[in-house]
């Protein structure tokens, strides 16, 4: 089971955001995607999840072509994601945010659920058990009945990851999970990510926090101006003269990354303050 990008391309009008990217993502590993602002990291995630159409090339999971399917079909093929800007169902409770993920598997018997209360009760307990376990894993069990939108920012990030995990996806795409988190929360997230690693799950993490990336990722893809610049283990990425020269090495670009991380915190700080 692998997720493969075949000569992937994305254009916004005349602007080429992704230029001929080919790579393979393996199960059992955590893959990091790094690169400065505008490198095309989110675009890769968005195309994989079906939020954006691809302009050229192909994305496949096992032998199945994902690109071209509708977003909900891609989700039902086992691809789950989080968003760079948190997108929860704000007015639903924390628990409901997870429960609703059972829709694809349970909607077929919705008539029975509506008309036959004992069946509905069984379903409800069933959903609740699975979701509560996930909430506990992320330390959110005490928030189960709170409105998702009322949670502190860091908790919302965790909840979004929990929501992505309800269906036990084969591919988990995380777009900047540590953005806006404080040091303590980032440490917690790093631990959770390591625990989520599983032989039958492909994990892809886009992240600006280099400590997190270097400590948790097994493989790293370096993006630069829409092109795949380098890929390898964290040690290889850090040692690569290519990356050093063209990217990490130059004072400019390493600054780019650091500025990006700082910008992100400032932007998200605003959202966090506005909500509380």
């Amino acid at each position, binding site marked *: 089971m692998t997720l493969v990008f075949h000569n992937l391309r994305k254009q916004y009008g005349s602007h080429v955001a992704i230029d001929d990217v080919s790579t393979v993502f393996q199960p059992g590993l955590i893959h990091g995607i790094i690169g400065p602002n505008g490198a095309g990291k989110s675009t890769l995630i968005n195309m994989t999840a079906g939020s954006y159409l691809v302009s050229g090339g192909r994305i496949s999971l096992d032998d199945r072509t994902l690109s071209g399917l509708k977003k909900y079909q891609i989700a039902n093929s086992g691809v789950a994601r989080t968003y760079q800007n948190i997108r*929860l169902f704000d*007015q*639903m409770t924390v628990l409901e945010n997870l429960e609703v993920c059972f829709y694809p598997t*349970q909607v077929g018997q919705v008539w029975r659920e509506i008309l036959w*209360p004992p069946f509905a009760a069984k379903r409800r307990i069933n*959903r609740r058990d699975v979701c509560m376990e996930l909430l506990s894993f992320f330390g959110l069990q005490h928030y189960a009945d709170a409105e998702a939108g009322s949670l502190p920012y860091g908790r919302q990030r965790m909840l979004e990851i929990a929501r992505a995990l309800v269906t036990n996806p084969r591919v988990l795409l995380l777009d900047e999970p540590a953005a806006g988190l404080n040091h303590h929360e980032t440490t917690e997230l790093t631990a959770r990510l390591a625990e989520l690693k599983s032989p039958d799950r492909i994990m892809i993490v886009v992240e600006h926090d280099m400590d997190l990336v270097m400590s948790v990722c097994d493989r790293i893809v370096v993006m630069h101006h829409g092109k795949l610049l380098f890929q390898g283990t964290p040690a290889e990425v850090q040692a690569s003269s290519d990356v050093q020269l063209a990217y990490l090495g130059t004072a400019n670009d390493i600054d780019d990354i650091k500025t990006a991380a700082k910008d992100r915190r400032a932007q998200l700080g605003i959202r966090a303050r506005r909500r509380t």
Partner: protein
Amino acid sequence: MSSVDTSVQMRMRGGRLLSLLILATAVALIIVTPFLPNYYVRVANGLLIYILLGIGLNIVIGYAGLLDLGFVAFYAVGAYTYALLASPQFDLHLPFLLIVVIAAAVGAITGILLGLPVLKMRGDYLAIVTLGFGEIIRIVINNLDWLTGGPKGIARLDKASIAGIELARPTEIYWLLIVVVFAVAIFVWRMEKSILGKAWAAIREDQDAARGIGINTTNAKLAAFATSATIGSIAGVIFAASQRFVSPDSFALQESVLIVLMIVIGGIGNILGIVIGAAILILLPEVLREFAEWRILFLGLLMIVLIIVRPAGIVPRTFGPEKLIRGLFGK
């Protein structure tokens, strides 16, 4: 015993008292109404029909978050289905229950047909287009003289009857409506609590994220449109059977607006809220009958006050029937 425990207990006792009070009042009103003079029973019947319409439209507006201003179209479809199948117009006199089934099916199909073209729309655009649909249906009815009798409408509709029992006098219609309103309310409430209801809520909150967790939003929205239209259509059948006369005048744009207002004032997404909203908007004009020239002004003022004081409606979304039941049994 700690003070936290006692305060929780007190709150629970308070909730229980409130639940008991609400339920007792409701039961008393339901039982007393049919013994009142016919005028009051007729008013109650009108109220119940609007509650039914509110429950139906709330599925689309309150649960799925789609502002539909053409709901009256389905009400008209149901009313005319009855009028055509149980009147001298074509000399058809089908049994009442059979017509209910036919009207439900016709309603669902119309709901899906009118839903399909607006699947990609939201907010203001959706409101304008559905408003157009509502008007189109009314104008078509107005112009199809050979079928609908045009502006004159269709008169001398059959009396409704179920299993040989005639349902024509106001009290008889009243009991029919009570049964239907309760059945529909329970059905819709269970629907809201089902996985489909949760999907509607997700679509309301963030449609794209809903797709991202695997919800086929097309199907879920069409299910909302179809269910809502079915209920509107059934309300139309009962309306036609109780008036025994239909004409396009009953299905003007104001009706749609009135039903939306009921929902907004009572509390979006909440069946109990709809009952309150309907009571205010339907009963108040009756009470204020003697001040005919003032009542629109009065209603307008009331609405302004309510929107300032309770922008999310009188009954909050979270105070649903389950709160009432839980309050009663102290769970």
